[in-house]
């Protein structure tokens, strides 16, 4: 906590705090006086009840003043207090043979409480003036009262020292001794700079991840290709890279996406529009279209095509819309366009629980994982399994490819580090990777997600389709699997 009070608030804050302190001091004195006089009136002279009344009246006025901070209450407190001090001193010292002299602590209590009125001043000067007035009035009233009794007069050092301490503290607080006038704004600026830098870092992380996803991946893909005409997959990805790089809105398109998401789920026309909105920013014009699942372009997509109708068949319209408007869907579609067979299983509707930021970043991370499969795994198929619980949504990307060896991976840590791990960790999630050479790889991305409202819809959707889980036995197998398995 380094944001200290700025100069213009210091005086006011200190004055308020001193007022609080003074009022509590005064209240304690008054309470103590009331109890003492109460005890005395029980044991010694019953006529002392008048002292209790006076003290309680003073306390009431003080509380009123503290609560409402009106000058009228302060004046009333002062006047009633002066009369009170007179009566209190006269009655208490009037008790025969009780007190040897006038300078008793008990007698000083209401006077000390009265002096504390000065703490209410908003500036040091007014506070000192109030206190001084109260001190002089109280002492004069007490002197008058003492002269009327038989008790010898002795100067009351308690009230005097209380008055001096209070005035000293007020003066101390009133002098602006902050030679560090420049330091406070400097710290404030440093905090603001830190916040800006943090935002910039977050944007930069995303930018670097995107560049890695697009440029580096693309260059690597080109460097691994055979000379000659570009393959359709390579052409599509090149197209996507160029479109993305020319689109300078990389970092701000989230807003477009969340706006499209907020649109009501109505006619299929609306759905199509919002879907186009969501993908148009970054999707490559592949010609065959990326918005529908069934017309994937390459022949290797045959298994997907057979599975896709079953998947969409069981889903409710909401479910379907949620899934198709998610960035994971876009990522999967894009990789299908590049010839990868992707099976999607599990709780697809759960992706709707992610907010726009998470959705986008999870989508890009999934895409990077799938691109890795395309580039390095040496297999033509992968599986995307979506799981969810109360607070999180997990996406498991599994392939049965050649896996990794340490020496290979050490050469290229950026893809995983930046495009997958950093992205997910920036969302407060975690990434777990299981891989062994020759035994494929599994990557599990887990991110926090909104629990209640959104998942209610998902639950409703699930209960509307009780046979859904049974229809897809792999879902059950996979969700109960807690230990890594790579037997394939």
């Amino acid at each position, binding site marked *: 906590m380094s944001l200290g009070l700025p100069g213009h608030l210091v005086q006011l804050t200190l004055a308020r705090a001193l007022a609080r302190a003074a009022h509590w001091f005064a209240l304690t004195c008054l309470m103590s006086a009331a109890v003492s006089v109460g005890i005395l009136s029980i044991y010694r002279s019953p006529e002392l009840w008048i002292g209790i009344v006076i003290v309680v009246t003073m306390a009431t006025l003080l509380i009123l003043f503290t609560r409402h901070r009106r000058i009228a209450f302060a004046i009333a407190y002062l006047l009633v207090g002066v009369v009170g001090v007179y009566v209190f001193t006269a009655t208490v010292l009037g008790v025969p043979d009780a007190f040897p002299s006038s300078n008793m602590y008990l007698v000083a209590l209401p006077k000390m409480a009265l002096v504390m009125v000065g703490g209410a001043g908003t500036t040091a000067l007014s506070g000192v003036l109030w206190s001084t007035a109260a001190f002089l009035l109280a002492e004069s009233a007490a002197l008058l009262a003492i002269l009327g009794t038989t008790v010898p007069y002795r100067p009351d050092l308690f009230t005097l020292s209380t008055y001096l301490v209070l005035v000293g503290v007020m003066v101390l607080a009133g002098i602006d001794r902050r030679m560090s006038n420049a330091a406070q704004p400097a710290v404030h600026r440093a905090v603001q700079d830190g916040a800006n830098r943090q935002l910039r870092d977050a944007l930069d992380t995303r930018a670097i991840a995107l560049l890695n996803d697009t440029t580096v991946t693309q260059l690597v893909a080109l460097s691994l290709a055979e000379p000659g005409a570009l393959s359709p997959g390579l052409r599509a990805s090149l197209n996507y890279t160029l479109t993305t790089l020319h689109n300078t809105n990389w970092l701000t398109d989230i807003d477009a996406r969340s706006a499209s998401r907020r649109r009501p789920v109505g006619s299929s026309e609306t759905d199509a529009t919002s879907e186009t909105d969501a993908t148009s920013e970054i999707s490559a014009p592949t010609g065959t279209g990326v918005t529908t699942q069934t017309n994937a372009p390459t022949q290797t997509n045959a298994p997907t095509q057979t599975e896709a109708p079953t998947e969409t068949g069981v889903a409710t319209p909401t479910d379907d819309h949620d899934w198709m408007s998610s960035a994971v869907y876009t990522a999967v579609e894009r990789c299908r366009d590049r010839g990868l067979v992707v099976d999607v299983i599990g709780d697809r509707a759960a992706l709707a629980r992610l907010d726009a930021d998470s959705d986008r970043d999870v989508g890009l991370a999934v895409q990077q994982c799938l691109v890795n499969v395309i580039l390095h795994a040496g297999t033509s198929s992968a599986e995307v399994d979506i799981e969810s619980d109360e607070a999180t949504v997990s996406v498991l990307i599994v392939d049965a490819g050649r896996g990794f060896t340490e020496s290979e991976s050490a050469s290229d840590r950026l893809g995983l580090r930046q495009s997958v791990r950093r992205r997910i960790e920036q969302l*407060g999630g975690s990434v777990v990777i299981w891989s062994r050479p020759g035994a494929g790889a599994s990557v599990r991305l887990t991110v926090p997600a909104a629990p209640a409202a959104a998942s209610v819809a998902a639950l409703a959707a699930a209960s509307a389709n009780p046979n859904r889980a049974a229809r897809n036995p792999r879902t059950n197998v996979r969700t109960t699997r807690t230990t890594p398995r790579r037997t394939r």
Partner: protein
Amino acid sequence: MTRATPTPRRPRAPATASQQRLDPIGGLAAWPLAPVVAVIVTSYAVVATVSRSHEIQIPALATEAVVILVIACAVLIWSARPDLAPFTRSRAVVIVVLGLIAHLMAAASTWQHNGLIQDDFAPMGLGLLILALAPFRPWKEILVLGVSVAIVVGCTALAQSPFLGRQAPAALFAIVAMTQVLAPTLAAAAYSRQVVNSIHRWQTDARRQIRARTEESRGPLAQSVVDHRLTNLGADVLPFLADVHEADSLTAADIKRARSLAFQVRRVLVAQVDHTWLDDLIDRERLSLTQRGLNPLCVIADPERRATGFDADQRAAVAAVIVALCTLEGFDPTILVVHIDGSGPAPTDTDQITQAFGARGARPTPATDTTTIAIVTAAQEHADAQARAQAQAFAQVQSQTKSRQRDDRAVDTITIQAAFSLSPFQRRRALRPYLSVLRAVFTRVRVTSRNPLLTLEFEAERGLPTHPRPRGKR
């Protein structure tokens, strides 16, 4: 999660907050209270002891009582010193316990011969000592200490009441003695509470404003990041890709070029990923020093990227200090060294990456592009993740229960060296507020000065490798 629980408009200040902790620079102004109180308490004790010498039965005890009270005052002054901030709870307890011992000894020295309770110097002295804690300690603690002291003082008064010179109900003596402690205690607690709440309110508003201002700059910032990245990408990559796209075919030369460009771009990106906020900060200071016509030589040595483990307050404090050093009159631009090392694991990012990708020394390694995903054996990673989650939960519990186990903590030691052609006095004066801020967010802040070299050394304790917080909580 975060959306489901609406945050109250005015979050309460943490229970451990004190004026000194929340507003270290403002707390500097409060410190003269301690010596003033110490002088009053000491002189009152001496005067009261001398003026009541006829009541004292055991002079040695009375003298020792005064001496112990003076020691308590000395501890108060020492504890309140800005360069020894923060004022810890144990210091407060030591002061109060010393005061209580003095009180008991003073009471014993006049045992059975005390004339009047109200003349005892110890209850009032104790009250004033507690009053002096107001700017330094949280109000609940002040209240607990004060009430405990009042109870002891009340009991002593009750014990003495049969032998007092006046005939009055015993409770009356107890009340008189207790009021001398309770009134300043309540005043101090009320002050502490009010000041802490005011500062906390201001901080909440200020933070909200900072967030708003940051959000406002999101658009331009995003644009500048994109521009910066595209510039960094170099003039070659985009035309190359466009050419390939246009030709719709690849030549062997293209493939070779693609490989070399891939290495280049990756090298740049990896270097950028390793950039921390501290590098940014020093870059900026270096730039502004250059603009002032100087030839700066600023060195950062943070091989493990420990700076990434700092929280926002710590970053702000370090940034403020470094900026202050650089703008200070007489600053020698050729000597500014920031060095971070420490014990325990470095922050998450690095340790995970080192785990996953091998030692840092190997980087950047332009080898064959085979795979992007790391190998970490299944059991290892899974166990790591679990251990992390457990340890994090454990750390939370730990921080709540305040018990410290060094083993679970990583300690980063930050050393900043700079040279000045200023007198030590001027230097101390100029840096005092910044040091007070450092002391509020770091532990063990040490300043060593060997003209013209100034060394600041301080430590940051991290619970455990920190994960960036979920967005909703920012």
